[in-house]
C-alpha cells in the first residue's frame, strides 16, 4: 500500500514536471512553419525575400496572412535599404475570400503623399508576399476599411485586386 502511494506520488510529480516544462520551456518554432516576406530594393523593381518563423499556433492561412502582411508592411530591418511603407502604417485586418486576400491598411498610409516610385515598390512587395502563400493569388487593398481608387499620392491603382501580373 505504501509502495502504491509512493508510485502515485512519483507519477504525479512526473506529470507535474512535464507539464511545467511544456508550459515554461522556450521552444523553437515548429519546423517548416515559416513564411517568406518580400521587400523591394531601392532600385524600385528588384524583390528579395527573407524567411521568418510564425507562431506554431498560427496554423490557419488567415492568421499566417495577417502575420506576413504585418511583416511586409514593417519591411526588413532598418539598415537594409528598401522601399518601405510610411512609418506608422498599420495592418487593420486581413480577410480571405477564395484566392483573394483583402488587406485593410490604416494609420499613416491613409494620408501620406508617397511618390509613384514608393507606391509601386511597397505594394509590389506586399503582393509578392501574400501570393507566395498557398491559395492566394490576388490582393485587394483597402485603406481605412474602404476600397479606394488610389492612395492620396494618386499613382498606383488600388480599386482592383493586385496580382503579380500587375507589374
Amino acid at each position, binding site marked *: 500500500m505504501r509502495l502504491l502511494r509512493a508510485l502515485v506520488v512519483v507519477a504525479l510529480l512526473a506529470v507535474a514536471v512535464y507539464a511545467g516544462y511544456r508550459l*515554461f520551456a*522556450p*521552444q523553437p*518554432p515548429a519546423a517548416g512553419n515559416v513564411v517568406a516576406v518580400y521587400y523591394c530594393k*531601392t*532600385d*524600385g*523593381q*528588384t*524583390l*528579395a*525575400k*527573407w*524567411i*521568418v*518563423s510564425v*507562431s*506554431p*499556433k498560427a496554423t490557419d492561412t*488567415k*492568421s499566417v496572412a*495577417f*502575420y506576413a502582411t*504585418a*511583416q511586409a508592411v*514593417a*519591411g*526588413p*530591418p*532598418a*539598415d*537594409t*535599404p528598401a*522601399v518601405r511603407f*510610411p*512609418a*506608422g502604417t*498599420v*495592418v*487593420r*485586418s*486581413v480577410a480571405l475570400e477564395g484566392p483573394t486576400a483583402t488587406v*485593410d491598411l490604416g494609420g499613416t498610409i491613409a494620408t501620406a*503623399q508617397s*511618390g*509613384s*516610385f*514608393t507606391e*509601386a515598390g511597397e505594394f509590389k512587395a506586399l503582393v*509578392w508576399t501574400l501570393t507566395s502563400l498557398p491559395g492566394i493569388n490576388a490582393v485587394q487593398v483597402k485603406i481605412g476599411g474602404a476600397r*479606394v*481608387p*488610389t492612395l492620396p499620392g*494618386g*499613382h*498606383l*491603382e488600388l480599386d482592383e485586386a*493586385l496580382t503579380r501580373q*500587375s*507589374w
Partner: protein
Amino acid sequence: MKPLPGKAGSPMRRRSLLTLALTLGLALGLCLPGRAQTLLPANNFWFGGTQLAFEHAQSRYGQLAVATDDGGLGRFLAKLGAVLSYQPGQNSIVVTSSDRRVVSFTLGDPHFSVAGVEQMAAFAPFASGGVAYVPFLDLARALYVDPVQDGATVVLQPQLASLEVRPQNRMTLVTLRGASPLRFKRLSGPGDEDLLLAFLGTASTLQAQRDISAAGLKSVTIRVDGTARNPTTVVDFSTASGGVRVLGPSDSPNAITLAFAAAGVALGGTPIPPAGNAALATAPLLAGDQVAGTGPGVTAVTATGAAPPAPTLPPYGDQSANDNPATTSSGAPLESPTPTAYGLAPATIGALDTQSTGDGFNVNLSITGDVTYEWHRLPDNRWYVDFKPATLAVPAQDRPLEDPSVLSLRVKPFIGPNDRLATVRIALTLASPRTIGLIPTSDGLTIAVGGQDDTSDQKVGMGELLPGRLYTGIVPLPPVEAAPEQSMPGPDESWKFGSSVPTNPRLIVIDPGHGGSDTGAEHNGLVEKDLNLDFAKRLRAILLARGWQVKMTRDDDVDVFGPNASAHDELQARCDVANKAGARMFVSVHSNSFTTSELSGTTTYYYKANSYALADAVHARLTAVLPTKDDGIRKDNFYVIHHSTMPAILVETAFLSNPGDAALLKTTAFRQRVAEGIADGIGDYASANPQPSDSSTMDGN
C-alpha cells in the same frame, strides 16, 4: 456508533483531507490559466519625463496586462515610433518597432517572437471584450525599454539598444541605436583626442568597454550617469591621435552613425556639432580610397594628400551585403556566408555546345572564373539563366533547334539595366515546362533539360558557380527582376485595351501631375506640382511649333476636377480630357521622390501593351540628352496611364529628394532638355507608327 479507526469520518482524517484539498486547490489555482484580476495600481509608471497611466489594464499572475486600445500604451508606442496591429478575430498581435523589428504575440501562447527570435512572456496574451491584452513589460523590454524601480514608481528607461562597429577600407563606422530618438551632447572639444558623446534620457546595459583597434578608433567605453528618471549614457570613443571623425547619415531618428579615420582621410559627412540628433547628418560619407564614379549620386571629392576622387557610399557602405541578405532560421538577414562574385572580374563563357540526350537536351558551357547565376521560368515555356558578371567569348546566337524538348536557343551578352554588370543570358524555348537542372562540370556548367515536365512552384532560382561547385540558394530566392523578357508585353494583349485609333490623330494631351490642392512631393525647396506644370508648358510650346495640336489637363495651378476632389474624380478627369478628345497620345509629367536622398534618375512608366513603344521612344531620347541616371522603362498600374485609352506614358523626370537631381531641376536648361527629349520621343514614335493624317503634320523628328 463508534467511528471506525482510519475511516474518513475521523477528525484527524478530516483535517488531512481538508489540508490535501486546500493544497490541491492552491496548486490548481496557480497552475490553471487565471482569470483576469482586478485593476492594477498601474498609474505609477514614469516614461520620457512624465507619468504614464494605463486606463485599460488588468493583472495576470501579478503582471501588468495592457489592452491593445489603451491610450497610455498608445502614447508609449508613439514615443518609441512603434506601431501595433491587432484586429478582433485575428490571433496575432504585431508590434513593429522604429527600427523595423517585429514583435509578434499570439493569443493563448506565452511564446512570442522578437525579430523572429522566440522568447517567453510572463503570460499568454488573451482577448476580452474585443481587445487583446498583452504582457506590457515583456513588450517594453522587446522595444529596448527596461523597467527600473525608483521608490514607488517604475521608471521605464529607454536603452541604448546596440553599438555596431563596421570597419571599412580606411574608416570605421559606428552605429548607435536607441529605443527612442537619440539626442546627444558632445562633451569633448573639437581638438580632444577622445570623442565623448552624452545621450540624454537614455540608459545602457551594453558592454562597458570594447577594444576596437580599427581605422581611426581604438576603443569604446560606455558609462551611465544621471538619475533613474533621467539617465544619461556617456560614450567615450578613444580615437587615433589627430584622427578625423564625423557624423554620417542614418536610417532612423533612433540611430546615430559616426565615422572615424586616421588623419588626412576625407570622410565627407557632417562635423559633429556640440549637440544634436540624427536629423543633422545630411551630408553623405565618402570612402577615401576607392575609385571614383562607381557609387550612386557620386560627388567627386579629392582627399587630402592627392588621394583619388572618392565616391559617396550608400548608407552603411556595404551594398553587396544588402543585395543578397542570407537568412538565419530566426529570420534576421545576415551577410552572405560565401563570397559574392559582385566586384570581381567578369567570368568568361568560352565555349558553348548543345547535345540531344534522347528525351532531353544539354547545353554545355565552359566557364572560367567565379560567377553568379539566376534563372527564371516564364509562364509560356520560356526559361532563361543570367550569368553575371560574365562576358561571352563565342558569338551570340538566336537559332531554332531540331529537338523535341527545346525549340530554340538564344545566347546574348548585355549590360544589366539595374546593376550595370556585364551579363550573359542563355534563353531556351521549351516544348513544355520541362525540368531543368544546373550541373557543375570540370570546366563549367551543363544546363540539363529533362524529359519530364516540372511540377514544382519554383519559378526562379539563383546561386553561385565556383570552380567545380555550384551553390544553389545561398541567397534568398528570388530577387525577382523585371527582366526584359517579362516586361515586354506581347502584341496579343492589345485587344484588352480597346482601339487605339485616335479620332484626333494630331492631338497630344499633356498631363502635368498634381496641382491645386494636391502639391505632390516637396523637397529641397521644390514643389512637384509647379515643376510638372513648367515641364508641360515647355513641352506644349515645342509640340505646337512642330505642328501638333496640344491639350493640357491643366495649364495653371488648379485641380482638374475641382478643389479637394477625391483621388478617383481627379485622376479620371485627367483621363477624360484625353479620352473625350480622341487624342493620339497621353503624356503625364511628374517628378519623383523618395524618403531618403540617395535615389536619383529618370524613369518612364507605361502600363498597357499599346503604350510600350511610346515609352521606349521617349525614354531613349530622354536618356540620350539628360545627365540623370537612367532608371529604365517600367510597367506599373498607375491610374492615369491605365484609364487613358490611347498610348499613355508617365515620365518621372528626376528625383526632387536627391540633392543632385534637385539642383538640375532648378535649372531652366535641364527642364528645357526634358521637354525637348519628350517631344523628340513623341516624334520618333509617330514616325514609326504613322497615322493616315501624318502627312499634314510638320514634325520633323
